[in-house]
C-alpha cells in the first residue's frame, strides 16, 4: 500500500477575461498513511489543490506526483468525497456503493461481501434499498465515504465533506472518519475551513492564504492517537487552536 503525494512548485491559473491565479508555488509532500488537513478561508484555492490531485483539473506549472507518477486524470486510486456527497440520485444506496467496483469490471462475488461490510461500517446496512433523497445529509455523506472505500483507494481526497452538516452530525461523522482511518491507514488529504476539525483529524495542518493561494504555514499535530471527539476539549487541543487562530490572524476586529 502506498498513497504518497508530492506537489513540486505547482501553480494553477484559470484563464478567462481576467486571469485568476488560484494557486502559486505549492510545495507539499505527503507520506503513506498520513492525514493532512488543508485549512483556509473560502477562495484560498484549497479545493483547487484537491481537484488537481484528483485529476479533475490540470496544473499550469510544476510537477504533481501520486505514488511517483504524474497525475493526468481521475482514477480509483484517489477516492474523492465531495461536499454534497454527489451520489447518483437514481441509484439506491447499495447501487451507489458498488458503482465503482462495477464499472471497473470487478466480479460480483468479489465486491459483494466488501460492500456489505462497508455499509455496516458506516451504519447503513438497513438502508441499502433507500434512495439518496430519502436520507439525511449525514447519511448521504456516509454513503459517499462507503462508495469510495469500496474501491480500496490509496488516498482519500475529502473536499469539506462535513461542511454542510449540522454541528452534532458533523461530530459523529468526524468520529466515524477517525475510526475508519485508524483501521485502514489510508493517506488522507482533507480540505476544511473548520479549525477544530483540522486539529482533531490530522497529523499535519497546512494553513493557506488566498489570492494567490499559498501554503503559509505547516503545523504538525501530535495529539495522541487514536483520537476521539473527546480530544476536542483537552488543554493540548486548545493550545493548538489558539496558536492556529493567531496564525490565521482570526480576531474580533472587523476586516
Amino acid at each position, binding site marked *: 500500500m502506498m498513497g504518497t503525494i508530492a506537489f513540486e512548485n505547482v501553480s494553477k491559473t484559470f484563464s478567462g477575461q481576467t486571469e485568476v491565479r488560484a494557486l502559486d508555488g505549492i510545495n507539499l509532500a505527503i507520506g503513506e498513511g498520513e492525514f493532512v488537513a488543508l485549512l483556509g478561508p473560502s477562495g484560498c484555492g484549497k479545493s483547487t489543490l484537491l481537484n488537481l490531485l484528483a485529476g479533475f483539473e490540470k496544473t499550469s506549472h510544476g510537477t504533481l506526483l501520486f505514488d511517483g507518477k504524474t497525475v493526468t486524470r481521475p482514477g*480509483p486510486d484517489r477516492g474523492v468525497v465531495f461536499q454534497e456527497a454527489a451520489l447518483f440520485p437514481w441509484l439506491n444506496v447499495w447501487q451507489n456503493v458498488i458503482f465503482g467496483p462495477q464499472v471497473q469490471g470487478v466480479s460480483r462475488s468479489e465486491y459483494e461481501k466488501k460492500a456489505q461490510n462497508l455499509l455496516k461500517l458506516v451504519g447503513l446496512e438497513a438502508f441499502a434499498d433507500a434512495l439518496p433523497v430519502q436520507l439525511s445529509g449525514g447519511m448521504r455523506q456516509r454513503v459517499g465515504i462507503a462508495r469510495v472505500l469500496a474501491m480500496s483507494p490509496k488516498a482519500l481526497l475529502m473536499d469539506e465533506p462535513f461542511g454542510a452538516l449540522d454541528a452534532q452530525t458533523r461530530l459523529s461523522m468526524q468520529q466515524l472518519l477517525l475510526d475508519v482511518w485508524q483501521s485502514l491507514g489510508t493517506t488522507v488529504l482533507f480540505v476544511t475551513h473548520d479549525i477544530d476539525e483540522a486539529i482533531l483529524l490530522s497529523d499535519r495542518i497546512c494553513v493557506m492564504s488566498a489570492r494567490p493561494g499559498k501554503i503559509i504555514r505547516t503545523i504538525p499535530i501530535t495529539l495522541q492517537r487514536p483520537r476521539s471527539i473527546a480530544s476536542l476539549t483537552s488543554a493540548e487541543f486548545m493550545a493548538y487552536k489558539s496558536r492556529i487562530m493567531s496564525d490565521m490572524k482570526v480576531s474580533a476586529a472587523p476586516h
Partner: protein
Amino acid sequence: MSISTGPIASRSASSASTWSVLSPASRRSLRQLLLAVVLPVVVVALWQWAGNGGSLFGGVLPTPDRVWQAWKVWAFGASGLSLNPYSGTWLANLLFSAERVAKGFVVAIVVAVPVGLAIGWNRIASGALDPTVQLLRPIPITAWLPFSIAVFGIRDMGAVFLIALGAFYPIVVNTAQGARDIERNLVRAAMMMGAGRWTILRRVVLPASLPSIFTGLRIGLGIAWTAVIVAEMVAVKSGLGYVLWDAYYVGRMDVVIADMATIGLLGLVSDRVILLVERWVLAWRRLQSFQS
C-alpha cells in the same frame, strides 16, 4: 336533451350520498374531476341549446346529439356495402393513425435521444450536429409535405417520415439540454470511480437527462399527432386525417367533429401513457420533488 349532461347529473347525485364515507384523498380527486368537467359540459350544453333542428350557423355546424349519432354509426355501424361510406370504419382508421404515430415516434426517439446526448455531452458532436439541427428546425413539417410526397409517394412511409421529423426536434433539443445541464460533480464522481466515457454516457448522462428527455417526448408526441393528421389529409388514403378531410369534402360535418373528438381523445390517452411511463422510470425524482 344533451347526452353529456346525463352521466354528470347522476354522478353528482351519487357523490352527495357517498361523500362522507370517502377518504380525504379520493374526495379531493373527485372534487377535481367535478371541477374539470364543468367547462366542457357547459360548452356542450350551450352548443346543443343554440342549435335549431339539429344544427346551427344555418346548417353548417351539427349539434352534439347529431355528432354523437354520427359517431355511433361510424364506430358500430355495419361496414362494407352500406350507403354510409364511414359506417363501421372508426376503429380501423383510428388504428391506422395510431400505428403511424407509434412508428414515427419510435423512429424519432431512436434517432433523437442519441443525437441529443451527443450534442449535449460532446463538444465536437455539438459543433458538428447542432447548427444543422437548428437550421432545419424552423422548417415546419407542413412545408415538408411536398418533399415527402415526392420522395415517398402516397404511402405510409411519407406519413411516418413527417411524424418522425416533427417529433425529432423537441426530443433532440430537450435531450441535449438535459445532457448539458448535468451536475458536474456527478460526472467527476463517475470518472473518479474509474468509469470511461461510454460508461459515463450510459450510466450517468443518460439517467440524469431522463427528466428533460421525457419533457421532449411529451412535446414530441403532440407534434406527432399534428403530423399524422396533416400527412393523412394530403399524403395517405386512410386514417383519421384522411376521414377528416374526406368528410369535410362531402359536407359531413358531424363526422368531422366526431373525428376531431377522436383525435383529441387519442392525444390525451397517449400523453397519459407517457406520463405513466415517466412516473415509473423517474420514481427517484418524484420522491425528490416531494421532499423539497
